[in-house]
């Protein structure tokens, strides 16, 4: 549980929770500023930076040219001088351009000067695109490659509450934090405490308790997992859904405890499989909860191709609730009843964005 809510939580949208977390943090820390392409637009990163601009003005929320690598270095240099920059990428795919600064500098700064050059408390937000033809370079999901590197924290809020709490935690961390926010979650509504609270890194959340099967799901896959768990519950199968929230540092214990309880594991992740987060969790279980496993672990991730644009292909691209249900039933030796596809959410998104 993140934060001790004094007042009752209201239901607000994910994007508004991001915004609220940012604003509350900015209020407390005058060193925080927000930059990146389009952060000061009326549409402000799908609504998440609009309020910050309104309240703190263009001196603290300002646009940037297209210069991902240098901008990241600039954020580092400002952070080293005591500021807390937030760099936003409207698509996390643009971050490849900044990998040198992120990985060779930010991730290693504290360590490579033996702690004597301070640390680099930058926050980098990257939005993960999905659907409506986002295509090969606007819908990747970079948590696995970023989490490979010691020194970087990588978090993925999957609920409005965590959108706010992880943002606030990132904005008081003493190290670089990458927040990957899934575009498909921005309109999601959920309870969010009004207070300032920080969702600690390295603490997974048991999103739904269960005993039959552990389902570790990241980011948007938590939504698919919840739908799947609801359907499975009607079949008498109680799935335990765990949202790691932070990919690095990873809360191994919560995941292992669940696996030890259920003996079965599915990992549903938004990135690719090979050397991906789904493999990480599968390996974790095979290494540290082996004796509890009652059958093979299973990974669900992005299929082994770039993301195509055509709707016909996009519709079969992503694992969905129905995929999870089918696989869960299979793992438990049961057979799916009828066509599962009907349970999947219909994408009502209107383009172009």
């Amino acid at each position, binding site marked *: 549980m993140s934060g001790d809510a004094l007042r009752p939580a209201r239901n607000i949208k994910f994007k508004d929770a991001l915004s609220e977390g940012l604003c509350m943090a900015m209020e407390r820390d005058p060193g925080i500023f927000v930059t990146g*392409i*389009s952060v000061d637009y009326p549409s402000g990163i799908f609504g998440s930076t609009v309020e910050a601009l309104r309240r703190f003005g263009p001196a603290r929320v300002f646009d940037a040219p*297209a*210069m991902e690598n240098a901008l990241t270095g600039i954020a580092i240099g400002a952070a080293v001088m005591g500021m807390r920059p937030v760099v936003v990428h409207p698509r996390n795919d643009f971050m490849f351009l900044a990998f040198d600064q992120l990985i060779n500098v930010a991730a290693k700064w504290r360590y490579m000067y033996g702690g004597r050059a301070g640390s680099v408390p930058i926050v980098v937000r990257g939005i993960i695109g999905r659907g409506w033809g986002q295509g090969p*370079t606007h819908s990747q999901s970079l948590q696995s490659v970023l989490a490979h590197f010691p020194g970087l924290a990588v978090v993925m809020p999957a609920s409005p509450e965590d959108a706010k709490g992880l943002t606030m935690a990132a904005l008081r961390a003493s190290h670089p934090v990458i927040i990957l926010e899934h575009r498909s979650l921005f309109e999601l509504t959920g309870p969010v405490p009004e207070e300032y609270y920080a969702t600690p890194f390295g603490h997974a959340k048991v999103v739904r308790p269960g005993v039959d099967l552990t389902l570790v799901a990241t980011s948007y896959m938590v939504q698919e997992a919840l739908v799947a768990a609801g359907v499975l519950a009607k079949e008498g199968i109680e799935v335990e859904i765990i949202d790691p929230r932070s990919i690095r540092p990873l809360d191994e214990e919560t995941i292992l405890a669940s696996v030890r309880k259920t003996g079965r594991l599915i990992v549903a992740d938004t990135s690719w499989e090979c050397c991906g987060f789904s493999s990480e969790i599968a390996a974790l279980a095979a290494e540290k909860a082996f004796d509890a496993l009652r059958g093979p672990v299973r990974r669900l991730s992005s299929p082994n191709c770039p993301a195509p644009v*055509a709707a*016909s*292909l996009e*519709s079969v691209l992503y694992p969905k609730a129905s995929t999870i249900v089918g696989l869960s039933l299979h793992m438990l030796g049961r057979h799916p009843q009828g066509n599962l596809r009907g349970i999947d959410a219909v994408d009502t998104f209107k383009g172009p964005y």
Partner: protein
Amino acid sequence: MKAEPARTEIPGELRLEMHARLLRVRIASRRLAELYREQEMRTPAHFGLGQEAVAVGVVTALRPGDVVYSHHRAHNHYLASGGSVYELAAELYGREAGCSRGRGGSAHLTAQAVGFIASTAILGETIAIATGSALAFSMRGERRLAVSFFGEAACEEGIFYESINYAAIRRLPVLYVCENNLYSTESPLSVRQPAGTELCERARSFKLKAERVDGNDLAAVYEASARLADGLRRGEGPAFLECMTYRWLEHVGPHFDHEAGRTYRSREEVESWMQRCPVKRSAAEIIRLGVADEAALAALSNGITRDVEDAVKRARAADPPPQGDLYADVW
């Protein structure tokens, strides 16, 4: 902007041919933008309405064997190169018949048969790629050119400077065409360039030949391109052409700013640029020079409109990629 030189030297026939190409780009783009509103084309599309003269003027200066690269706003360059309207529409509709078989969408077009190699969605990428194609030509002693079209925001990315430096060192036959439409998404030049910036000056400091033209003046773009292309073919090293122009629609999508409630540009500014419509200007010039009359141009336009209509209809009706092909062509 430079004073415009007299242009009687462009033959009437060529003027008409360019105008026909311009009309084709305009009519197809406009029709696609209209259809885009139906939400059946599920691919973020950056329309180039208002900027057509840049693509047509440059491409007209090319020869068979030359290659063209483009960026996210690729339709104009694809169409000006002679890319099929049917295949473009099919691509936007996500059809197997699309130029990229529905895989790439609006930003990832290809039409190799007509020399349009590819466009990509991330800023600056194709600037280097075009440079590499020119390297191949140069290594093989081929007298072919590579053209890279990009927006002025790509000049904020380091890859632009890495590329032009390389091209200049090796005297590669690349024409870098910067379409300066004053905005990157909704950001004006002032947040992206120091006051007084001349991109041509930057290019010259890398030892490129550089010119700046009115990008809405088809003949001016053509003439500058032809001049620079000549130098390129003579092995004089890379060149940079900045074309001042303006996009009529919102950054991505089919609406005018005012329709979408966007406020980063004033309606007056947009309308003043629409007055400087490259198609109208080209038509007026052609009529003034007596190359063709209004009726002939109307007939030309009608013919193209019919072709476009036929193409988009067929594209809409075409088949989507089979789901079983999800994994085809990964490598």
